[in-house]
């Protein structure tokens, strides 16, 4: 279980994340939503130790994450950032193999290779596994990075806007894979999403941030309704029910 307690971060005079507390239950998909600049990425970075919090703490299995050893932590929690820039030329397969580093330390065993194969398969990258990353399209590249995180095989997977650059088919595919990882393998996924319909259809729980503060936290059905959404986005968002899914039709709303 990951427990976030009164976590805060400020840059200059601005409280970017302000006293956020929440618990991430194992075996669920939690979506972080909220306007640009709300602090979603910053919160995720602090939970994954990429960024140090100013105050407050994060507990992983009752132990503060500061006390975890880097290599052990990397076997439990993985994160994929919003943008990834690299200075080296790597093939898709080489990149995905890096996901095994916490276990293999650079020397892949047969078991590691199996995980890599599986992750490549999951992300439909089989045909381009020997292509160089910098020769792929934005979406293909994004999928290669997601495959790396899947190969890392951690209990907790944190993804910052992984659907960036992806077409509808691949977005749906990735959300389904995440669902499968949670339902079949018992993983826990925390994901930042801008398309609230993906959040509505695929997540168990939604956490909404606004101006650095946690404004909503609850089961998906409690958040996806016009009243809550207005509070988060200051916008009228009609919600329609379709085949048991709640769909937000915001394309021509006005504030």
């Amino acid at each position: 279980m990951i427990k976030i307690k009164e976590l805060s971060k400020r840059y200059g005079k601005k409280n970017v994340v302000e006293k956020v507390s929440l618990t991430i239950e194992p075996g669920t998909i939690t979506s972080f939503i909220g306007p640009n600049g709300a602090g979603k990425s910053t919160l995720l970075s602090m939970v994954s130790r990429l960024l140090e919090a100013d105050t407050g703490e994060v507990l992983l299995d009752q132990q503060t994450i500061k006390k975890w050893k880097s290599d052990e932590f990397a076997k439990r929690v993985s994160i994929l950032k919003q943008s990834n820039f690299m200075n080296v030329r790597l093939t898709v397969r080489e990149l995905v193999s890096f996901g095994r580093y916490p276990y293999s330390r650079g020397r892949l065993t047969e078991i590691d290779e199996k995980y890599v194969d599986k992750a490549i398969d999951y992300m439909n990258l089989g045909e381009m596994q020997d292509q160089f990353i910098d020769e792929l399209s934005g979406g293909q590249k994004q999928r290669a990075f997601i495959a790396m995180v899947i190969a890392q095989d951690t209990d907790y997977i944190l993804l910052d806007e992984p659907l960036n650059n992806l077409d509808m088919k691949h977005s749906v595919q990735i959300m389904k894979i995440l669902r499968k990882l949670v339902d079949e393998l018992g993983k826990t996924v925390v994901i930042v999403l801008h398309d609230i319909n993906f959040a509505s259809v695929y997540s168990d729980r939604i956490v909404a941030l606004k101006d650095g503060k946690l404004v909503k936290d609850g089961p998906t059905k409690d958040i996806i309704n016009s009243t809550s959404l207005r509070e988060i986005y200051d916008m009228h968002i009609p919600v329609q029910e379709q085949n048991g899914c709640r769909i937000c039709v915001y394309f021509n709303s006005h504030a």
Partner: protein
Amino acid sequence: MRKNSTKLILLLVLSLISILLYAFYDIKGGFDYAFPRRVIKIAAMIVTGVAISYATVVFQTITQNRILTPSVMGMDSMYGVVQTLIYFFAGSMSVWVVNKYLNFAAAIIAMVLFALILYRFLFRSDKHPIYLLLLIGMIIGTLLGSLVTFLQVIIDPVEYLSLQSMLFASFTKVKAELLYIAIVILIISFVYGFRIMSKLDVMSLGRENAMNLGINYDRMVMNILILSSVLIATSTALVGPITFFGLIVANLSYQYLVTYKHSILILGASLISIIALVGGQFLVEHVLELRTTLSVIINFIGGIYFIYLLLKESRAAK
């Protein structure tokens, strides 16, 4: 992978040929006199080449770029500054000069500090555009150079002569007593290096990806900065500054051996260095008959190559 091992073997053969040529070509008359001298020079060139290659490749990995090198950022000018300051304040008879080890240690410590400050302010915070960093590097280099000149003008003329001989080390005037320290330092660096090769590979994915994969990134950066400062200090003390050398050999290695593996990249760059230095010195001594020096040639070719890389980078940025 297979192709890379063939390429490395080719480089190895070429370096051996250069070494043999330099050691035995045209060695008339006083073999007993000339041969040991040539061996010392060869050893110095190998140590220098390997130290610069190693330092440059790891520096470029942690700074996430392929154009800036420790030398371009002014790290080897720092060596001159330290020596000049020592001569200025302590004098050539002081223990800081007479004791070679102490002198060397002082230079290394100053260079490590310089590297840490440089990193802290230039590379750690938000990503600055490469041109800005380059400009700052040039300014720092010029500033340090002027400081050295200024102090040298007001220093005692006798001291000045002795300082000059210290700063103008070159391949033809290797200081043998420093060679042993240099070899020891290089061996220690490699023992440490073997343990971190795969970590370096992960670090080339960038700070956040590396941290995600369990690398203690900031501590590694610190260690590597120290490592590369020590190596640059070693090579500068041995043969003097050769600004653009690291840039050439590191980039040739990246281009020739397309891989992310540091073990291969560093080995490749080291072999290329040996070919360039030993082969180059052979040409300078036997073909050009010492009408110019190797450092001049290297900086000339290196400067052109540097401009080429900059242009390529700016085209890629568009």
